[in-house]
């Protein structure tokens, strides 16, 4: 278990607030999906909030994050406001992708959220490319890829990690090992479920952390980001975690995993356990976390209203932005 006394109160409250913002937004999205407000798919990050939160705490808006189909948490942790995420899933022009993307295509380059992808794998390579730009133009920025255990079997993992390693690029590869790819168990999909160990093949440090312990993630990420910014190359971080909702909203969630397993992970919820630890250790006062709870509640409620009241994009614009405007 991580040493929570190493961080100050402000840091703890910020981490807690960020996780909660993701959780409440996801819960709202799940509800909205049931209510028919989300026309497309919706993969929630519920249960995995500690990872995006612990990693993104070290990033500036110039650092570039690349993510995958389960990307709401990454977008939020990187600084995309909940209202832009919700509006995007509602298909509104005020969404972070202006309604062109939906759940699996969240873009907000303004804050360094360089996109989620409906295709599993590419984010690993693209983060490597962000590292290349950083080194080429000497910006000091890092590239970060978030991806699942499922992606770690894909060729993009092998090629991307190797490229980052040989060019010594400032990249953090964050594998969110939630033990399943849709309904296919990771233990079926590989004979070595220790993703962090694979780093050895690329001559790169690999670190496995408890992905439900935000401070453990925070510390591993601190080290990796420091290495990257210092020019010492990439790191692979494996966060062991679990999604407690179905793969995608509206999909059945039975047969491939036991209720026991789900419950055991729910008991290790990254948010409630952290809250309890902070209070128990006396690092924050109950009133302080309650205030955060309330602030997040209001934020997400307002975000929902904002999204609901936002207009749809104009169909006349449908062919814009295929090419850069200059060249069109």
């Amino acid at each position: 278990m991580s040493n929570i006394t190493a961080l100050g109160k402000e840091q703890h409250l910020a981490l807690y607030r960020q996780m909660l913002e993701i959780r409440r937004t996801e819960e709202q999205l799940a509800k909205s999906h049931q209510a028919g407000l989300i026309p497309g798919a919706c993969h929630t990050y519920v249960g995995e909030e500690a990872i995006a939160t612990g990693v993104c705490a070290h990033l500036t808006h110039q650092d570039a994050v690349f993510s995958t189909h389960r990307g709401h948490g990454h977008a939020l942790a990187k600084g995309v406001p909940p209202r832009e995420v919700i509006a995007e899933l509602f298909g509104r022009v005020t969404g972070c992708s202006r309604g062109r993307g939906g759940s699996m295509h969240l873009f907000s380059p303004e804050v360094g959220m360089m996109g989620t992808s409906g295709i599993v794998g590419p984010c690993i390579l693209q983060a490597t490319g962000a590292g290349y730009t950083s080194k080429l133009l000497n910006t000091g920025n890092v590239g970060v890829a978030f991806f699942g255990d499922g992606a770690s079997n894909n060729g993009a993992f092998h090629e991307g990690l190797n490229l980052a390693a040989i060019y010594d690029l400032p990249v953090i590869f964050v594998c969110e090992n939630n033990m399943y790819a849709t309904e296919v168990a990771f233990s079926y999909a590989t004979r070595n479920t220790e993703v962090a160990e694979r780093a050895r093949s690329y001559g790169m440090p690999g670190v496995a952390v408890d992905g439900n312990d935000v401070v453990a993630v925070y510390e591993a990420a601190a080290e990796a980001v420091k290495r990257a910014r210092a020019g010492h190359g990439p790191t692979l971080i494996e966060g062991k975690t679990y999604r407690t909702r179905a793969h995608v909203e509206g999909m059945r969630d039975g047969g491939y995993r036991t209720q026991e397993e789900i419950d055991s992970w729910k008991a290790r919820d990254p948010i409630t356990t952290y809250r309890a630890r902070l209070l128990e250790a006396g690092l924050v006062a109950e009133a302080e976390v309650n205030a955060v709870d309330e602030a997040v509640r209001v934020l997400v409620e307002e975000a929902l209203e904002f999204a609901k009241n936002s207009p749809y994009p104009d169909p006349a614009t449908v062919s814009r932005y295929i090419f850069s405007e200059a060249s069109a």
Partner: protein
Amino acid sequence: MSTTTATTTREITFTAAAREALSEAMAADPRIFVVGEGIGARGGNFNTTTGLYELYGPMRLRDTPIVERGFVGMCTGAAMTGSRPVVDFMFVDFILDAMGELINQVAKMQYMSSGRLKMPMVLRGCIGISGASATHHSGSYYPLFVNIPGFKVVLPSNAYDAKGLLTTALKGDDPVLFLEHKLVLNNKGHVPEESYSIPFGQAAVVREGTQATVVALSSMVKKVSDACDSLAKEGISIELIDPRTVAPLDVDTVLQSVHKTGRLLIVDEAFGPCGVGAEISAQVTARGFDDLDAPIQRLNGVHTPTPYSPPLEAAVVPDVKQIVQAIRDLLAE
């Protein structure tokens, strides 16, 4: 010819019909196996294999990691050595990671080996725009496979054809793309219980007519049919052709029709440039020029990545209204 009315009037969905073809073929031929993500116990994201795992077990319904290139390459080697793989891509968009294996290996294998190796492989996946699936889950990439020699490309538009065409695909020794539009999956149709096959390269004349020929692909067959219905009320008579396979492409049937009608429109959700409509137009122009009373026209999906938001999405797919208008324009020329 079947003797039981119960059988001949049975109506099942496109998906059930295709699954029936698959199950029949698997029962008959132990060399057939299916790979894909979640096609085992789960039965496939689109129910392509529901119930088959229980019948044929894990070696023949093989869940895979997320390695589209990997399992296509694996199936290539399997086909080269005597088994008959079916690759279920779920969304056909994911096939793109396997293009190297498909174009450089699968499509060329029989040729490179001077016919001594066969390549019986069925590649199936859902195509098309629907339900705010956005640009990574809405593709219809068949023109790419028509351009490359070595593929057969099947676009069934209804349940009956789905079963018959998939049966043909599973019996053949060639790589076949079997592409199922999301919007036709749940459409029901009359499907005989007994096994039957529909040969590739034979277009169906879906409705006969005299004033213009419309060729429609996949989900557009239904939409054009609706458009024809509405035009028929005004006494406008349209001949509707569904090629069913675009490689091989039955242009003869189109030419015969154009010989009669003098006018041709091709309606296709997939992209226009270097698309199937372009190919049909070019062939009909070259071979049936004197039959043409008006320029051949195409109506395609808008040439853009597929947007997510419903009003944008609706704006990129040809709808019945646009089809009606395109036919009117064609008749007015």
